[in-house]
């Protein structure tokens, strides 16, 4: 009680110094933002390059293409970044990305389009998609966090399992003729901008705000930064980590829905090779692979960067056999730049 009184007096003193603090605040805030936004020049350079390569690049139509192309990837990047922040990995997100929509579509589509034939209500199908995401996330979370399996190996094995299920379930067939409700996410637009883009942007914003302002969000940073300190402070480490796994999987499932909607079909190969791009975007954007560091705005710039590169390469008419090599080289350069600037902390 005595202490409280002392504190109150000190607060009074402190607020009188408030002016000084506020000004310092602003400068500090800018400095903190500066780190992540230093990828912006790289993006600007890319945009200039794109405009030079093909005047079409700068048209709204093409830029919308770029955004849409990156939307599904973006969802998975949000998901993976959250997991990385708590100090764990999840490689199976690409499997969920493919399997969840497939199972949902299977239950909805007519038999002629490789569906099961039960032809459920599309909304039920959507629930199934989210449900599968939740279930896989819970499974991963419990086994990695509670049973202490090595996150990398375990989720890698899960990834192979899920992809295998995706292939074996329908014998490799594609599910067509999906009802409008199912493909809504990937095919519709609001105010001229694709729904998928809206949702991904909202996802990034929500995650960023959560991480910054919500207790559980800050706790995630603590868990990734110093696990013991977090525990000692009474943070419910296990609960939060499992929760993150579950949320991430659901986000990945939604991302898969987006891609399925765009292609108006769910193929047996959806999600293949996705995870490399996810990690590249996250790391370039400053999310540390050790955990506890990194911000959503950085990851977003990583996604934007990758999408731009893909688009520019398509527009350039580089001999198609060279696209991979160029793509890889650009990612390496981006990583190097990120390290130089100081955002990359892998």
């Amino acid at each position, binding site marked *: 009680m*005595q202490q409280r009184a002392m504190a109150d007096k000190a607060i009074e*003193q402190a607020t009188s110094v408030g002016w000084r603090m506020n000004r310092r605040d602003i400068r*500090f805030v800018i400095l903190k933002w500066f780190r992540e936004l230093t990828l912006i020049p790289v993006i600007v350079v890319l945009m200039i390059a794109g405009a030079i390569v093909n005047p079409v690049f700068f048209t709204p139509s093409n830029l919308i293409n770029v955004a849409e192309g990156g939307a599904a990837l973006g969802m998975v990047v949000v998901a993976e970044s959250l997991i990385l922040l708590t100090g764990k990995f999840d490689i199976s997100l690409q499997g969920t990305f493919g399997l969840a929509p497939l199972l949902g579509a299977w239950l909805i589509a007519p038999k002629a389009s490789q569906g099961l034939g039960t032809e459920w209500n599309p909304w039920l199908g959507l629930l199934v998609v989210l449900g599968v995401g939740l279930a896989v996330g819970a499974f991963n979370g419990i086994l990695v966090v509670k049973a202490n399996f090595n996150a990398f190996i375990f989720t890698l094995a899960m990834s192979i399992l899920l992809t295998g299920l995706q292939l074996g379930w329908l014998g490799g067939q594609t599910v067509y003729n999906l009802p409008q409700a199912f493909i809504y996410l990937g095919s519709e637009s609001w105010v001229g901008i694709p729904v998928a883009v809206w949702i991904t942007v909202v996802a990034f914003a929500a995650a960023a705000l959560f991480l910054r302002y919500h207790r559980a969000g*800050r706790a995630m940073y*603590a868990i990734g930064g110093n696990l013991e*300190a*977090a525990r*000692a402070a009474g943070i419910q480490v296990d609960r939060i980590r499992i929760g993150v796994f579950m949320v991430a999987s659901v986000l990945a499932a939604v991302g898969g829905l987006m891609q399925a909607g765009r292609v108006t079909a769910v193929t047996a190969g959806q999600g293949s090779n996705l995870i490399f791009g996810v990690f590249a975007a996250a790391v370039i954007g400053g999310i540390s692979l050790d955990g506890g560091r990194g911000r959503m705005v950085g990851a977003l710039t990583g996604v934007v960067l990758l999408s731009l590169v893909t688009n520019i390469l398509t527009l350039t008419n580089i001999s198609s056999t060279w696209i991979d090599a160029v793509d890889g080289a650009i990612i390496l350069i981006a990583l190097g730049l990120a390290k130089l600037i100081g955002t990359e902390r892998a």
Partner: protein
Amino acid sequence: MGEADHVFKSFGETRALVDVSLDVRAAECHALVGRNGAGKSTLVSLFTGLGRPDRGAIQLAGEATPSLADRGAWLARVACVYQRSMMVPSLTVAENVFLNRRMAGEGALINWRQLRSEAHALMLEWGFDLDVDQEAATLTVEQRQIVEIARALSIGARFLILDEPTAALEKAAVDRLFERVRRLREGGVGVLYISHHLEEIYEICDRVSVLRDGEMVLSGPVSNIRQAELVAAMVGTAPPRRATEIEAVETHGALGETRLQVRDLTVYSRSGSVAGVSLSVRSGECAGLVGLRGSGSATVADAVVGLVRPRSGTILINGSAVEPGQVHSTLHRGVGYVPQDRHARGFAPQLGVDENLTLALLDRLSRRLGIVSYRERTATARRQIEQLQIVARSLDQPVSSLSGGNQQKVVVGRALAPDPNVLVAVNPTVGVDVASKEALLDAIGRARDHGVAVLMVSDDFEDLRVCTRLLVMVRGRIAGEFKQPPWDRQRLIAAIEGFEVAV
């Protein structure tokens, strides 16, 4: 504030605490001393809610302790500032102070402005105009301590445990810490002060309790207990053979030329910095470096071998300077190294006994094109095995499957195999059974007699039997020298703990 009442605690067969009673009153600084392994950490874990006593009770502020799962309740009553940092490095100071805590009028969302202003206010309370927006990773050790103490108290804890708080602090910071502890006392906080530095206890504490081998052997006001009594209580009655002395060592060889010279060595290290240390070891000598953990003795050994790069100073082997920080070239000059932690640095666990023994010799065993001569390797290995009496099923038995004693013999054997001029041994008999200990020390003694200059770093007094000279290190400097064996235990311990030794 905190009370332990006839507490017992065992881990499996090991009895960590036997009938221990200790109480810390409000507005008191109560010191807890004891050698390593006496049971201090166990007691602390019981006080902080990381375990329950098997028998007896712990009380906090006169009330029963909360359930172990209710971390929040524990944190509100008792706080411990460990040697390890308990801050999240990537978060700001302000956040760390209020980690997982709600401030008045807050929901699940964080009000950053309020967080910063309250944290800043807290720091000001301690007279510390610390920028609460900086990342915790940038804090110095002293600053970190302050923040952790401030955090603990702001949660409401009135029982504060300080675990070796001065271990990594230099003199001025120590003084500041004492000032703060005094203020805490005046504010009504009860402090349990754990330290090896006995002189500090006399400066700042009111009462002291001594733990030895899990039992409380002495407890009372500091003003009533003399230094000698304190040390005696810590050490206990020694076995009759060596009542007060460490036995004289038998030397058979004459002292030769100086093989190892260290001049003005300064090293910055997390595990104990060294400032301006000079020493020399001659052929046929064994110089023992003794000191507490963090005193810098191990760091000197690391620097001599080349594992750490010194800030300044020179190291000479056989009269010529070595390039600092290069283990390979240092070992090449004829230095054998027995490292501190055999598991981390001592042997390659899956390789066989013969391979490990000859690891340092590989270039001598391979004449043509770098291919190792099998015959020579086997012969060399056999020789070492015989000399050290290593017990193994076969030459290629993986070292990881040997007993601790034999493992250590392999490590020592490897160091001695190339007939070095200088042997640097750090804690050579740690975790080793009695018989192996004898064999190891004999081997080192033999090496010494054959002309090897031995630098031994150890806090096990048995090891020091092989030494001809002792150098005591305190806080990075050489504080005293004991030239002629036998040495008086009491005086030795006193010197190690930082007391001035009347020669």
